[in-house]
């Protein structure tokens, strides 16, 4: 493990069982995450993109050990999380937090904003009494809310404000690593920018490391240092943010980028758009060989037989791609 790697994931698998019958027999698996490996460096933001159902969210939650039954290793600062006991993992959660996609469902409706934000402090015994109140007030200010709102309930806030509460809750324990699970996709476009700017500001101030999950490439482009593209439970390409937009290699990434609208009609009319055929195959019965081969416009025979490995194109280039056709 390299010193500057905060998170290292190796051969992560997460299969959700499909059960049937009275005895709840396991008849099949939804292969949500199917053998992925990557690392996140300290202080960097890794964007994780892909369409719905490709396993982005599952990956984020697997890193935080929120699922049971995953396989593979997840190392945080060299500590293997999968081997930790329940209580050890609970303490470990101080270092890694999650910001949710849905700011409406992720806040307990029966708790006030102050209680929600203060809960992590209490759970980990970080502050009490006057100090606790001061820290909660400080957290409110940190996410640009007013501390006098602490007595209000979640339903009295707007979507953007609720998301700020969610962010404050995640940052209350001063984590090193935060998984942002589509933190802006449930918000209005005008609010999205505010939240992104806030997240960037907090990252710089507190020296956070983000795993930023999104399905919107333009959002990811702004905030990420590196970007990983997922398709049907596997990572197809991972490289520096600028590189992936300037020089995408995997056919899926190319298709995805060609779908991003460009706010210039002239450019938009002349550029080549790739429209993929068909739907995403079922993650229960993924196609043999390369996952993307039935929809790929570059596919050849080998793609149908052999699953490509994620490989670094030239050593040290940090451009990893999983495709037989890319040379």
């Amino acid at each position, binding site marked *: 493990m390299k010193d500057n790697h905060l998170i290292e994931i190796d051969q992560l698998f997460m299969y959700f069982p499909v059960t049937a019958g009275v005895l709840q027999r396991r008849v099949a698996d939804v292969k949500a995450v199917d053998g992925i490996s990557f690392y996140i460096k300290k202080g960097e933001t890794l964007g994780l993109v892909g369409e719905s159902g490709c396993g982005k969210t599952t990956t984020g939650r697997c890193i935080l050990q929120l699922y049971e039954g995953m396989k593979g290793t997840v190392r945080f600062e060299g500590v293997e999380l999968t081997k930790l006991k329940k209580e050890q993992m609970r303490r470990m959660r101080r270092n890694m937090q999650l910001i949710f996609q849905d700011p409406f469902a992720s806040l307990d409706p029966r*708790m006030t904003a102050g209680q929600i934000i203060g809960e992590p402090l209490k759970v980990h015994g970080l502050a009490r009494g006057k100090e606790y109140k001061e820290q909660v007030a400080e957290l409110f200010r940190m996410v640009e809310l007013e501390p006098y709102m602490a007595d209000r309930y979640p339903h009295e806030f707007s979507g953007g404000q609720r998301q700020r509460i969610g962010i404050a809750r995640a940052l209350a324990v001063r984590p090193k690593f935060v998984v942002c699970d589509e933190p802006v996709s449930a918000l209005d476009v005008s609010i999205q920018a505010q939240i992104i700017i806030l997240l960037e500001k907090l990252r710089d101030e507190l020296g956070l490391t983000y795993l930023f999950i999104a399905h919107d490439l333009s959002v990811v482009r702004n905030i990420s240092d590196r970007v990983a593209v997922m398709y049907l439970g596997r990572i197809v390409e991972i490289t520096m943010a600028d590189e992936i937009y300037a020089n995408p290699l995997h056919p899926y990434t190319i298709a995805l980028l060609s779908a991003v609208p460009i706010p210039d009609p002239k450019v938009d009319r002349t550029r080549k758009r790739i429209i993929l055929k068909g739907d995403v195959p079922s993650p229960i019965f993924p196609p043999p060989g390369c996952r993307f081969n039935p929809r790929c416009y570059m596919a050849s025979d080998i793609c149908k037989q052999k699953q490509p490995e994620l490989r670094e194109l030239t050593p040290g280039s940090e451009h990893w791609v999983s495709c037989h056709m890319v040379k």
Partner: protein
Amino acid sequence: MTEGTKDLYTGALAVRKRHSFLADLAIRCVKEKPLGTVGGVIVLLLLFIGIFAGWLAPYGYNETFVGGKLEGMSSTFWMGTDNVGRDLLSRIIYGARVSMFVGLGVPTISMIISTTIGLVSGFIGGKTDLIIQRFVDAWVCFPALFIMLTFMALVGSGMVQVILVLGIMGGIGASRLKRSAVLAVKMNLYVEAAKAIGCPTWSILIRHILPNIMATVIITFTMGMGGAILAEASLSFLGYGIPPPVPSWGGMLSGNARRYMIQAPWMAIFPGLALSIVVYGANMFGDALRDLLDPRLRGGIGRYSGGPRKRPDL
């Protein structure tokens, strides 16, 4: 400004919390829920009458008046007398004591049992849930009266026994309601959020699941009150409840009252009326409580919210 208490967070004046939680609840109940207030008063009245029965009743509950059998309402006997010549009003007042203990004791025990089973079974799930639920299924398969009689025969008759048996019986049956409420609540994202924060399981159960199934808990409690008083009646009728001559509304209603229904209808009417009023009051109070404890139903025009909600000058 009002009290001028400096707020912890900003030094701004606290606008909402001027009263303690209970005082705030009481004020909001009176202002927003008139029917619930009436219900609350009825429940309080039951408690008052039950506690001070000895002072309130004009006669003793087992005091018989020779030649005063089956007398109608008069200035001496406001509600008439029963078949052995006892004053009905005094018996109803003393009967409030039994109803109070049974009507509050049984739902309390049942609430504790059912909520515990429901939380454990619903939240942990898996095999634990499967085993507990099959046990509950088997339990509710038996006719209620059959189990009640079996247990009463084992532990003997008496108030404490009645409360325990009815409480345990009802508790196991009601655990299914609690379980389904827990199942619905635990799928919410905020439960996962609590887990991600690092909340221990017990803390998730107490701080997140329990407050969110409160509506079910309160409603089953108040519904249980009436049911418990009536169940005690049927036990008393069969001779397994509270042994005579201690009066209970249920016993008065179902025992001799039935035999003398035509000659002395007051014997059934007054205990029945008392029972209905208390059950009605408990249900109304429960409904109001459920609404008042739900922060989402708070606020709005014409509602009490603990003072004007304006932004304090910072």
